[in-house]
């Protein structure tokens, strides 16, 4: 216990020299699923909110009272169980998401981090992010989280306009959001991210340009800009469908996105993922793990994971989902140590499909090295370099395949979802063709220990 408790302090002390600057941006070493040493990112889901936002369809719950001690105990127990099952040697990052995890007490965050540090190696300086709502992010609260071991904040500002915030069903005003960001920057300098939405019903080009300017005056070194997605079943989507709010036109959305890319680029931000911008190397290590298709463990109600069950002798990555409903999840954790609702072994093709889908969202794309981890037999050139969809998309200027790997061009990134079906279709075809002629070969390869891919 004492050792674990000591960890956050060490981390806090070392904050100035944290990996951030340049660290996460560089490709880390291979993240082999089955070769030692195994590493993984860890996501912790806090499912509760004080109020549901009008656009949100996440797995969140608004309840009168949360039995935090029980939830904490279950988060701790599930983290321990899953880390043991995965035999992950080192946890590369921890992310507390939700829900509204800033509503949890710092003690819960500390308890989970201690459990992680106890069950696996949690390097000093590993990124520990907490999502925070401006309405529950006063300086004192944030300081408590810092003391608990959090070293990066992601603040859900969403908008800097009070009318927009009301439409989104947010509990805070623009002024409160500003205050929260300023407090956060004081406590987590260089490691405060803000979330912002664009393409809100009725939002104009000019209004968005103004929001961007205001954002630049406020922000630290990381911004996530999300085009509002009208998710089915949300109050906002229903209002738009009923005609009570206007649906933003496609061309306007494209304009807003392009404006944001240009404005943030001019301000020194690297557009490192479809919706994420960072300067001074302040990329999110944790989120990069997803986009690089590294292992991650999901803890908490409804959390998703991708990892190998090495404790069970597994050698293939599984897609795992924890039970979404908190009470049921807790019951399962209490009785069996974890609340895994579903698990499915991912085939080599499925892993490559995920790698392609996620990797192309980043500016670095999919490196040859990373592809090689998943597909030692067929390299990127063999799959996408031959005449076919990818070649055509390269010629049309949407895609690049070169010594750096496969990635989108500036224009291609904005239309990635139009590129992916063709690329996936080509991947399926090429792999299908490769599998057929030399029968049995890939299976032997898989069985031959250590191979992660085909």
């Amino acid at each position: 216990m004492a050792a674990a408790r000591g960890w956050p302090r060490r981390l806090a002390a070392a904050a100035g020299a944290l990996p951030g600057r340049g660290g996460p941006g560089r490709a880390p070493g291979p993240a082999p699923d089955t070769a030692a040493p195994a590493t993984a990112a860890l996501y912790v889901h806090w499912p509760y909110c004080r109020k549901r936002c009008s656009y949100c369809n996440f797995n969140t719950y608004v309840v009168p009272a949360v039995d935090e001690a029980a939830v904490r105990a279950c988060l701790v127990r599930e983290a321990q169980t899953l880390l043991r099952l995965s035999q992950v040697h080192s946890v590369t990052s921890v992310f507390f998401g939700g829900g509204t995890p800033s509503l949890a007490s710092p003690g819960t965050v500390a308890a989970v981090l201690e459990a992680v540090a106890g069950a696996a190696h949690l390097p000093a300086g590993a990124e520990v992010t907490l999502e925070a709502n401006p309405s529950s992010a006063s300086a004192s609260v944030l300081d408590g989280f810092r003391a608990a071991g959090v070293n990066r904040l992601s603040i859900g500002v969403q908008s800097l306009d009070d009318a927009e915030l009301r439409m989104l069903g947010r509990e805070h005003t623009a002024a409160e959001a500003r205050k929260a960001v300023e407090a956060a920057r004081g406590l987590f300098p260089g490691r405060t991210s803000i979330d912002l939405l664009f393409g809100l019903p009725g939002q104009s080009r000019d209004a968005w340009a103004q929001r961007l300017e205001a954002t630049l005056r406020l922000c630290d070194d990381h911004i996530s800009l999300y085009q509002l997605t009208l998710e089915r079943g949300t109050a906002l989507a229903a209002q738009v469908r009923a005609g009570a709010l206007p649906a933003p036109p496609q061309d306007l959305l494209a304009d807003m996105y392009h404006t944001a890319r240009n404005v943030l680029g001019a301000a020194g931000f690297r557009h490192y993922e479809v919706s994420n911008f960072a300067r001074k190397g302040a990329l999110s290590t944790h989120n990069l793990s997803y986009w690089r298709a590294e292992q991650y463990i999901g803890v908490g109600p409804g959390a998703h994971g991708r990892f190998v069950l090495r404790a069970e002798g597994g050698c293939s990555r599984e897609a795992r989902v924890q039970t979404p409903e908190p009470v049921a999840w807790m019951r399962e954790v209490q009785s069996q140590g974890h609340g895994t609702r579903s698990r499915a072994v991912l085939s080599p093709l499925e892993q490559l499909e995920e790698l392609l889908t996620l990797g192309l969202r980043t500016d670095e794309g999919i490196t040859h090295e990373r592809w090689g981890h998943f597909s030692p037999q067929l390299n990127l050139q063999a799959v996408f370099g031959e005449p076919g969809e990818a070649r055509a998309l390269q010629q049309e200027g949407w895609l690049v395949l070169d010594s750096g790997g496969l990635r989108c061009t500036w224009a291609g990134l904005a239309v990635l979802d139009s590129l992916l079906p063709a690329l996936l279709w080509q991947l399926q075809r090429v792999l299908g063709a490769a599998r057929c002629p030399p029968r049995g070969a890939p299976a032997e390869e898989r069985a031959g220990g250590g191979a992660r891919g085909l």
Partner: protein
Amino acid sequence: MALAGRAALRWGARLPSPGPAAAPLCRPAWLPAACGRPYSSRGKEEIDMSTYPVESIRNFSIIAHVDHGKSTLADRLLEITGTISKTDHNKQVLDKLQVERERGITVKAQSASLFYNHEGINYLLSLIDTPGHVDFSYEVSRSLSACQGVILVVDANEGIQAQTVANFYLAFEAQLSIIPVINKIDLKNADPERVEKQIEKLFDIPTDECIRISAKQGTNVEKVLQKVIEKIPPPQCNTADPLKALVFDSTFDHYRGVVANIALFGGEIAKGHKIVSAHTKKRYEVNEVGILTPNEQPTHKLYAGQVGYLIAGMKEVTEAQIGDTLFLYKQPVEPLPGFKSVKPMVFAGMYPVDQTEYNNLKSALERLTLNDSSVTVHRDSSLALGAGWRLGFLGLLHMEVFNQRLEQEYNMSVILTAPTVPYKAVLSSAKLIKEYGKDQITIINPAQFPDKLSVSEYLEPIVLGTIVTPHEYIGKIITLCQDRRAVQKDLLYIDENRVMLKYLFPLNEIVVDFYDALKSLSSGYASFDYEDAGYQSADLIKMDILLNGNPVEELATIIHKDKAYAAGKLLCEHLKETIPRQLFEIAIQAAIGKKIIARETLKPYRKNVVAKCYGGDITRRMKLLRRQAEGKRLMRKIGNVEVPRDAFIRVLKRETDK
């Protein structure tokens, strides 16, 4: 378009099909067993048909507009004569198919012989249930040629309707005795007097000749039977003559082959006789003859003037074509006049929704056409829709009912493309004349449309349409008809507030949505019927649809020049809605030759990428993307433009499906 329900019924008609329903295999479950087709005789004793000489025989049909009570009257006649027992279940006894009962139409005509004693004489009354719809005017005319009279049923409330008129003229031209019957006099709004006046005005039948009945309640139905005996003459023929039998219908039975419905115009026929088809010249030995009551009941013989069935080892319905004449081997007779081969008037492409269903659909089509040789089937394939067929139908109702039977009886869901009509071209180019071996060709597929330079004239099929409507809708209806390039031939008030209009229509102007338009602008009150009226010269052109300059073969259409602009614009707009945006701009154009007549522009995607894709989003994301990747396989590529199969289906399907 909803096929179920009477509201969807286009011409409200009874359709025949040269084959009966797929009766044995597909007997609806609700049919009492006795109504089924027994494979052995029901009564052990065979009836001696020689006891019914020509003088005591009456052969007749009932004709009516849809829903005016034809089948109910038939039920009562069958009950009164003891042909079927009187129960509450006798509803449309002769209509056996699901589609018939649902839509109140007769798809497959059934005939029945009734025995009736009148003033001490035993009569053999043969009710020949003709298909009433003029889609099938040929079949109707053949059925009527086996009759000497008809009962013309008119609804006391609705009065004369378009189909009443068409049916009347068919009977009148066949010089049959006509017994006008005004039905449903029990209804609250019944106005038999008005209907009698309409009949007098339009058909020149004195009002006192009409019989007012309620088939539902049985009122005056007996009187109808008496009139049949009094007014309809017996057939003029002689048993001593050589055999001369008209095939007026045929059915396919999976166990016994073709069952042909026949009317004897001379001679007699019995098991063991060797007969010959005048049309095919094929020879057969008779296995069984009998009468329909309405189930098959074998008899020793059938004699001149009688109506019954025959089984003679015919394997396909095409061997027993409607209108054919059968005679005894080595005793040839002059065939009965009026035989024609079936001529489809409306064509449509039919494709399985899923290509893996191709073989199942093929076998369903084969089974259904076994009973309906009037449907022509040609294999066809479309780059977008895959392998399928081009089917020819006698008319629109025929097409709909065929499709509905396919769905109901064979559980097949199909893509049916918008119907087209057979155009003709009179060739002027010596080269083409030589190539085709004739100077006039029929064009079913736009790909075969010959260039104007090698053609002296294009021809389009026309029909004579009859519309009966309350007079307040007349203005709107005239406008509608003019929009459809129709030429007015007649306008007649059949009483103070009902009008009958006759128009010559180009057939292609009514094949898609005319009836729906007519019904909607007349609040459902106008009725419509049409009959074939040959061909007329027409200014036809072929309109191509281009995507980024590349023609889309399956969207080319033959169209009248005056309609091309509007149709081209509509088609382009429709395509713009159905083709998904792509990475580049797509020009959707309608063109006549090199001339672009309409254009829509589908803008490219400028942004298409999901905002959030983190650990918890991937599973759902992959599901969608894999489906889209799979969809790539089914894309039809026109140049670099990808068109999903769904887009083709939506555009090629009938407009009314929108």
